[in-house]
């Protein structure tokens, strides 16, 4: 199936750290809903957004729901275009194996190009 048939190119960008604010959690809710619309969805993790998919979260003591396992459900929603910025990972002391999902690692120039292709964005 060609990309043209998949509708509009829409991108959700995660760039905030989890739990300190709700942006990444409500951003994830948005991704899951968008998955039902059969569009050409891309999900991108940059800046502190990479921390949203760190493995091993245990949130019982802060009393907030751990949403990281839900990121694994993204693929079940037929959203396969997942990307993460290499430099953001390195700068923050993580590697791709530290994460609950393994987005495609790309560099800042590829991030730029990918963004240029999209029709509309959501930044969380």
């Amino acid at each position, binding site marked *: 199936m060609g990309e043209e048939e998949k*509708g*509009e190119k*829409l991108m959700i960008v995660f760039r*905030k750290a989890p739990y300190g604010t*709700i*942006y990444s959690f*409500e951003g994830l*809710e*948005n991704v899951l*809903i*968008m998955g*039902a*619309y059969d*569009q050409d969805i891309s999900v991108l993790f940059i800046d502190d957004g990479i921390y949203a998919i760190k493995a091993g979260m245990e949130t019982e003591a802060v009393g907030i729901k751990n949403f990281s396992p839900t990121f694994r459900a993204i693929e079940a929603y037929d959203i396969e275009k997942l990307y993460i910025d290499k430099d953001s990972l390195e700068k923050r002391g993580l590697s791709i194996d530290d994460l609950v999902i393994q987005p495609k690692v790309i560099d800042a120039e590829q991030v730029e190009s990918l963004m240029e292709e999209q*029709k*509309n*964005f*959501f*930044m*969380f």
Partner: protein
Amino acid sequence: MKFGVLILEGPYQHESSDSAYHFTKAALEKGHEVLRVFFYQDGVINSTKLMEPQADDRHIQRQWSELQEKYDLDYVVCVAAAKRRGINDDVIGPGFKIGGLGMLTEVAIEADRVVQFGA
């Protein structure tokens, strides 16, 4: 051109709602269409008619309601975000309606541009 507007921050605490309001108004005055204004995250709090700012301050909900009436706009307040923050059908002002998050995807598909305020 067909615009969509997305607001993620609450009234008064952040300027985002004011900026979104001025942008939306300017776009309409230039003859553009604004297909939908979507209120998400703390943005849902802009819809409450219970707000009573000081007499010399702007009334953010009423400004939005008046703009909606003038141009017959579509304002959607995300139900999931609203429930968390104490916003429901009983407290929203005229012109606002509570709806699903899918209505944000719809406007992202249909509008040429979605302009986001806050995050």
